[in-house]
Structure formats: C-alpha cells, structure tokens
C-alpha cells in the first residue's frame, strides 16, 4: 500500500472502466487481503487460496463492465465473485481429491500465518474493534458473509432456531454499523 493517492469509490470505478492499470493495482492493493481472507475462511490451503484469488481478480477485471453500481458497492460485487469461485472450487472433484491428500501440516502453517496477519491488524487497531462482536454474532456473520450460507442453512448448521439466526445477524450488523459511524 505504497499508494499515496486515495480514490473514492466512484473515481476508482471510473478509472477501472478505462482499463487503467494503476487503478487496477490500487484495487488490488486495497482489497486483495480482504478477498484472500474470505477465501481462507473456506479453504485452508495457501497455494490454492492464492490461485483462486488470482482467478478472482482476472474475473473481476474481465467482467467489470457487468458491474452495476446502482445495485451495490464494488466490494460487495467483488466479494460475491470471489466467494462463488471459491465455493465452486471446493465443490469440484479435483479439490475434494486433493483435500484428502493434504495433510495437517498445511493447516498448521496456515494457522500460524493467520495469527501473524491478525497481529498486523491488531497493530492497526481494527481487529480490536471487530472483537466487540460477540463470538456467536461473529460466527453467524462469518458463515453468511464469508462462506455464503443462507439463514436456514446456518440455523441447521449451528442447531439454533431461524429466529435466533436472524436476530444475531441484525444485531451484529448494527454493532458493525455503529463501529463504522464512531470511526468516521
């Protein structure tokens, strides 16, 4: 993130529409980590995660014309592309085969990596803010937002009533909204 220029979302989208490489690099620098974090929530394999991340950015670039800002923010759109790509990969036969072969060593190294990354964010003070979410709220948000589970699926997966899932989700988003407002 050596970039000193700061684009707002509209400016960035305008530049991206002109196929500007520096705009793409800005996009990458600002969002690769967040998108990679989403992939990591689903896949515990650094190499595969980075392959998917690469594929996701290529797809984002190639399909940029189909992005409609009236329907939502750019990051939401990118996250959906990345998440779907990751889920498709996990469901593919070759991944299932490989998942059997992978041993726990990778998971161990990934975990330690993750801790380091989290430490980095601790230094930025962001992690501390999200820690204000209760564990059960985080769990619901992670499953829905990062892993794409529907409310019904989360209800089954966690063995809690659908109403509870809805409540936790809304409460969690309120907390995040308040955090964002207090930051601004």
């Amino acid at each position, binding site marked *: 993130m050596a970039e000193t220029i700061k684009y707002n979302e509209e400016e960035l989208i305008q530049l991206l529409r002109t196929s500007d*490489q520096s705009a*793409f*690099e800005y996009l*990458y*620098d600002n969002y*690769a*980590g*967040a998108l*990679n*974090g*989403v992939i*990591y*929530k689903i896949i515990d394999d*650094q*190499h595969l*995660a*980075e392959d998917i*991340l*690469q594929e996701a*950015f*290529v797809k984002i*670039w190639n399909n940029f014309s189909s992005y409609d800002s*009236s*329907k*939502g*923010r750019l*990051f*939401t759109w990118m*996250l*959906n592309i990345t*998440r779907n790509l990751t889920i498709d990969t996990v469901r593919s036969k070759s991944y299932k085969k*490989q998942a059997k*072969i992978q041993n726990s060593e990778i998971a161990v190294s990934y975990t330690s*990596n*993750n801790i380091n*990354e989290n430490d*980095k*964010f601790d230094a930025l003070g*962001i*992690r501390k*803010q*999200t820690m204000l979410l209760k564990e059960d709220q985080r769990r619901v*948000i992670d499953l*829905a*937002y*990062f892993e*794409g*589970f*529907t*409310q019904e699926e989360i209800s089954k997966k966690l063995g809690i009533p659908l109403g509870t899932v*809805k409540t936790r*989700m*809304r409460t969690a*988003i309120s907390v*995040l*909204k308040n*955090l*964002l407002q207090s*930051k601004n």
Partner: protein
Amino acid sequence: MNKEEFISSGLLELYAMGISSEEENLVVEENLKLFPELKAELSEIEMSLESYALSNAVEPSSSVKQKVITQIFHGTTVKQESESVPVVSINRRNPIPLFYKSIAAAVFILLIGSFILNYTYFNKYHTTQQQLDVAQQKLDEQETANQAMSRDLNVVTDRYALPVVLNGTPNAPEALAKIFWMKNTGQVYIDPSNLPKVPAGKQYQLWGIVDGKPVSGGMIQTSKGLYSIQKMKSFGKVDAFAITLEKTGGSPTPTMDEMIVSAKM
C-alpha cells in the same frame, strides 16, 4: 411494502451479505429504484461489512499481484513456480513393508548360500569321480595282472605240462628259456623271461625240429621289453626246440648262426 417496512424486513442485510435469493434480489433492486434513499442505507450496511472483511484480511504472497497483473495486462499466465506444484513427497511413495524386504533379503541369502554349496559339492563330486576312475583303472590293471599270473600258474601247475629247459648256446651262454609242453594236447607255452634283451629290429622265433626239419613255432611277443609266459604253436611230436634271433616278423627258415637256446627232447 413501504420504505420503513422494507428496511425492517432485514432483506437489505441479506442482500448486502449476498445470501438473499434471486426473488429477494429482484425485490431489493426494485425498491432501490423506487426509493433512492435506500441506496444510502444499503451502502452503510455494505461498508460496515466491508470494514469487517478488511479486519479479517489475510495478505496474499507478494508474488500473486505480479501474476495477476501479468495475466491481465500481458495476456499470459505466469507459470506456477516449481515450489507451488503440489508436492508429493518422496516418503509418500508406497514404501515396501519392512516385512517383505526382510523376506526378499532372506531368500537372496539362501540363494547365494545354495550357489556356494552347489559349487563346493560339485567340485567334491568331480574329484571323487576322478579318484574313483583312477582306482577302477588300477583295479582293472591288477585284475589283468592277476589273470595273467593265474594263467601262467595254471600252465606251470598243469599236471600234463612237461617242462623243457632250453639252455644257452655258445652265442649266449647265460640265456635260458623254459617250455611247458602239454603232452595231452600238444600245446606249447614258453617262458622267455631269462632271454637276453632283444636288439631293436629283431625278434625271437621258436622252432620245433620235427623229423629233422625246423618248423616255426611262432614269434615270441615282448610287451614293453618284458616277457611273460605265452602260448605258441602246438606240436604233436617234436625232436628238439630251439630259439633263434630273427628279424622282426620272423623268417621261413631259422638263421642257425643266431641260435640262442636249444633243447633236445
């Protein structure tokens, strides 16, 4: 559904998280058109989630950015580095169980041992066979000698054998020969062992004097320079025996100058 009802339905949150259904998406997008101020509400939710996503970021390897840029702006896919090729480690190969290794080693050792034993025993067998052949040959020789001796003895001990001693002539005063004349059959055996060594190219010839005339009794065979009792021609009646030294193969008439031994009956 008015704006407030829509906001309180929670659909915007689901939409922002990307877990709403296709139908719900259409409803949300419809409302976004109807109430532009909903866009701000949606953006707020999206940014809250975005901030949460950023707080959960995991920075990828620095090489990924270059790969993506190369692929997008230079139209090529960067080949995966060798390190990123899924490593099937060597120890993951199906190892041959130690048990089978041990079996194989044991079989190999037994095989080698068998070779060594085979070689040793074959050599022993071969040597023994040779020794046996030598012994057999000796035995055969012994047998032959025995037979010869027993035949000689038979001649000497035959009750009808008339021993005749042929004394040396002035040509060879030391010479002596013995004849065993079988009176019943007329067979003549001679023991030439006390005759002088025969010169090269010469041979002893036996003569019988029958009715005043010399009749050849055959050539005396020598084997390796040695004499043994041998059968000669038979004589029904004979006046005298004589042995002359003749050229090899014998002569039709005796060379009287070369008479070695003689005996009158």
